[in-house]
């Protein structure tokens, strides 16, 4: 319902030392009409120029500090609020090289009233600021 709005394309930046970035980060919203406890976010799959990056490389931070996807599985006391950007940090040595890249995000949500998982996807052409 909000797929095209998930990634904030202007927010993409490298992280780590400027001359040796350890990865990149961007702001994203949850593609759902309400907030969710983090334990129900099963996947935040980041794909860069067609290659899906390892699950272990992705960290999430809604403001309470970076957390791995595995740790999110039991983060019952943290919540990704509706319409609120959170930071997605991706460990990717060297960061994003200069120039345009295709950045995609797939969210897989465990929504209790649906028998099957809900998927949201967005892809944007981005540049590291």
């Amino acid at each position, binding site marked *: 319902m909000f797929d095209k709005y998930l990634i904030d394309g202007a927010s993409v930046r490298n992280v780590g030392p400027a001359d040796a970035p350890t990865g990149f980060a961007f702001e994203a919203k949850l593609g759902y*009409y309400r907030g969710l406890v983090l334990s129900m976010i099963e996947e935040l799959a980041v794909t860069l120029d067609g290659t899906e990056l390892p699950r272990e490389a992705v960290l999430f931070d809604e403001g309470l500090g970076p957390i791995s996807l595995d740790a999110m599985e039991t983060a019952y006391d943290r919540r990704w609020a509706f*319409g609120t950007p959170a930071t997605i940090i991706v460990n990717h040595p060297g960061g994003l090289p200069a120039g345009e890249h295709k950045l995609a995000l797939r969210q897989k949500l465990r929504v209790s009233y649906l028998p099957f998982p809900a998927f949201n996807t967005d892809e944007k052409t981005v540049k590291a600021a």
Partner: protein
Amino acid sequence: MSKIHRGVSLYSFQEELFLGRMTVEDCIAFGASIGAKGIEILPEQNMPEFPHLSDADVARWQDMLARHGAHFTCYDMFLDTKLRKDSLMSDDEQVESIVRDIKLASRLGIRNMRVLVFVRPDILARCVPFAEQYDVHLGVEVHAPWHLEHAWILRTIDEADRLNTRHLGILPDMGIFMKHYPPAFRARFERQGARPEVTQFIVDSHEDKIMAEYTIYEVAVKMGGNKAEVAMAESLRHAPYANPKRIGDYAPYFRHIQAKFYEMDEDCTDPSIAYDEVIPELVKCGWEGTLSSEYEGNRWIQDVHEVDSREQVRRQHVMFERLISQAEAKFGAKETV
């Protein structure tokens, strides 16, 4: 004074709220400005502090409503039975979650709760003593493709009768009365590659009320439908036209209505949902409660248009006023006793 009150769910402004183009106060102010003073909220959407609201938070909401002459009508609950990856919530945990919502609704001064349709009737039965104590009506949302007479819904009705309670019942979502296939749906599927002759076939099949599975088979197998065409045909599974004549039979079991809609035409008519049949039934049976706008059209047009939820809601309320006054002229506006 009509017994049918007008209101709006903040769900209607999800596009603007999500994008930060409206605040909740903007929504409430807008609703009040068009006479939709009953406000339905989704705490898990509209209250970032959820579920830990302080008394100050509650007071802030009350003040905000008071500033605009508005009031709360309904609390849309959720139940995260799948909170944990590998084990479903126990029955006790489910009851606990619902009771938490009942208490929060009560603190906010809300007397209706929208219960998700998948919540088990036996779980709700266990919540009834709390619903009675806090005076919150638990209404199971009758959402398409369920309908008022679906056996699953009747289990809740039976439970309410068995417990002889006025605090358990239903909460109909008007999407169950989809008499005509929404033009906005069709247009989106065409933008995704559905051919006009195939979308016309699907629209005609819906208009004729053909069993959805037949149309899906025709489109998928016989016509060799493409992805968008098959998806459009499959949308028929969720596009039923329930019989508005049943409204009176179940009126004692609901006090709030989610007035689902997908688009309003410029002349303030709904091309899809049969409000012109629903509202006379509501007036005829003397039902009292709130028609709460639930605009869900954003997702069907956001790929090509700016979404203007306010204008859509405004048009629906022009229609409500027209249809309510026509029906009251015909059947008489019954006074509340």
